[in-house]
């Protein structure tokens, strides 16, 4: 079945099984290795992508549901202003450990900055609650996102 969608701002189409997971389409057919599989059941958020501007776990989504929609992966977002800002903050705080969960965290944090962006710890915790990190204890992730919110504020929300 032919499925067409927008992937990181480019129009793409693919002939595939309608039930193939979006995660597998991205990794196998588009070689987008930044989308990681860890739990395979929607618990950990390592495979998070933006689907029509909302974070979704791509391991739980069949490709048929992506028809006509917009998909962004972490690599796609890394080229945007807020993506760059977040990467700088994650880097500066030495927040990244094994890094396997971070592309998912980037996508979710990007969505938070874009839709709310308040430097509020409780809100940030809620926003990131669908992403699991086993290495960090989350503290430095909060610190990074908080820092990105503050910096984005000081640029007048240039996003």
């Amino acid at each position, binding site marked *: 079945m032919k499925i067409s969608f927008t992937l990181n701002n480019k129009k793409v189409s693919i002939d595939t099984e309608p039930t193939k997971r979006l995660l597998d389409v991205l990794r196998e057919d588009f070689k987008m*290795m930044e989308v*990681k599989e*860890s739990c395979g059941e929607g618990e950990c958020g390592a495979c998070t992508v933006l689907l029509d501007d909302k974070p979704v776990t791509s391991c739980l989504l069949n490709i048929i549901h992506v028809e006509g929609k917009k998909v962004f992966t972490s690599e796609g977002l890394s080229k945007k202003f807020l993506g760059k800002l977040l*990467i700088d903050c994650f880097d500066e705080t030495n927040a990244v450990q094994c890094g396997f969960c971070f592309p998912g965290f980037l996508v979710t944090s990007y969505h938070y900055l874009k839709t709310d962006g308040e430097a509020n710890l409780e809100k940030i915790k809620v926003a990131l609650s669908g992403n699991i990190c086993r290495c960090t204890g989350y503290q430095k992730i909060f610190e990074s996102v908080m820092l990105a919110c503050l910096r984005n504020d000081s640029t007048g929300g240039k996003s």
Partner: protein
Amino acid sequence: MKNERKFDARPKVIGTHKFVDDYHYDGMIYGALIYSKVHHGKIRKITYPNDFKLSEFTIVKLEDIPGKILIPEPETDQPFFADKEVFFYGQIILAVAHPNKNILNNFVKKIKIEYEELSAITDIKETLDNKENTFGKQIIIDHRRNVKVEKNWLKTHSVYYTPHQEQAYLETQAMIAKYDEQNEEMFILGTMQCPFFVKEAVETILGDKIKSVQVETSEGIGGGFGGKEDFPNLLAGITALLSFKSKLPVKIVLDRSDDITITTKRHPARIEVETYTDPQTNKIRKMNVDYRLDAGFYQTLSPVVLSRGVLHASGGYNIEDVYIHGRLIRSNTPPNGAFRGFGAPQAFFAIESHIEKIASELKIESYQFRKINIFRKGDEFPSTQKISEDNLFDCFESIVEKSDYLTKYEKYKKFNQTHKDKLGIGLAIGYHGGGYTGNGEKVLDSEIKIKIDKKAIVTIYISNVDMGQGAHTTLAQLFSETIDHPFELTNVHIPNTKICPNSGPTVASRTIYIVGNMVSDLARKIKKDFGFDNLKNFVKQNKQIFPKEFSAKYKPDPNISFDENTYQGTGYKDYSWAACAVELYYHADTYQIELLNCWSMLDIGHVVNPKIAVGQAEGGVLQALAYGSSEFFYKKGFGRMHGFTDYTLPTTMDIPKLFIDFIHTDNEIAKGLGEVPMDYPAPAVRNAFFNATGIFIDEIPLIPETIFHAMKKEKKL
């Protein structure tokens, strides 16, 4: 003390840093493991589905092994594959490979294995309670000093239980093997902590069928925590065998369900503690510890976990007369393995809970009781090793102050008299010996290599991996700081057994403590031998000398020794010390605890990169808090746990505020950091709950079920 940024942070966030599943080789096929779904049984029949072309599949079993069938381990007793009988749920029976992942998965689902089921020991608590299940070598530390028990001394006795814990590294176990038939060489690429262990395992399974094995780690290693210490040996062996048979590159990536089912976990423990305390002085005068670990069906590296466990089993207290008996217990579950802490978290849970029990029986505040008994400089371990510093005491005093423990303790006592829900604050202390136990580092005989090129670019060659702890950045920083060379010009080579010397495995909090200090020593030696002030200028002026390689071997301290038979002597040359306070809220209606704050104070000697160190400690503390409060593994019926929906990890909403700090010492040595944060927080949770409710709990995690049962037992329901 600089906060150099991690080499790999940016590509990891973007997602371009490569983990095993991101690698692809031409002609590569995919492998899968087929394992036992019974706890014990004879294999009657294996039937392959007949709607597939069997010739398209590569299938390997025990009889296909050209080399040796046992996986090299401290105790070499586990075969790569089961033979005619399986002994635990998850034991690998065969492996299959096919060029198409979907066809492979469908084929695997349809393979039918019939068993004649036999009796199995799978109830963890019952298994540990039964001494008859003991196997392997037992360890005794005999520090009895003929202390005569007086009639008025308080005898305190209790049995403590700790459960399995899953490492839950986010990147599952994964391996690629690429056989070069022409040169009879096997190349392995994988996610692992110990490349040279993997090399040995592949050489073992293939024997003289190959000339050489080269092992390289993937660019990124998606977490390890001990879980990638020994399982990769098994996985690499089998992947290599598939590649050898098919003559094609083979990749195996476990899915989460298989990973949770068949890989190693933290050993469940049963620890019985008996103490005699003089009520006049409030000093513990005598202690007996019976320390048991459930090893699973095979011993593998459990004897080593046992040895660390017994060396930490009497806790951080100076007791004249101590007797520790350690043993392994066999059950029909997968072999348990390494997990951050390596036998010590179990020990500290028991001892730190027990201290609280004695104090409550003596009717004194446990803070005072700890203060009277805690290790001070000049005291000694049961191994007779002398305590050379007062840093445990300093950590303890500092945490009491930082957490405002004494004020809160009194305040909550009053609060709890009038409220159904309760508030509690609890303390715990811990420590962790750095590096291999006893003579282990001497035996390892680690070697490092440093190359300096014509542009003064320094490359450090070691076999220790960066699995997220930031070890490679920290090692480069150590070199750069030691001789004031630009950090930007200092790199660490990706571990590869053909290119890098064997600096030992990435375990036992040894990468910075042992290998890092070797790097600093070699940097100083290079500087001294050439007599330069500035390496960059020196290279510029003496280009003809470069590129040049330098190497160094580990130099054991000749003044220390350890007797492996009596467990007397220096167990570890240096210890990292820590103390902790946990504050919680108890919701009486739902039997739930909510962690509010956790303060940790650690002594790790020289803190090389504070941000990296704090981050690593925060992660360890959270794993430990979850071990004590929420991570739950079935005690019965292994194999029912399939993923992160069953085994729940803490999310951003489940965690307290974490405060990490390091005490300042003039120690120039960077001591171990990886494990110590795992050792003490779980009992602090338990003790906070005890102070909140007065209910004695002898096991973790403190999930509502555990609390409910404990209340029922104490007839408070």
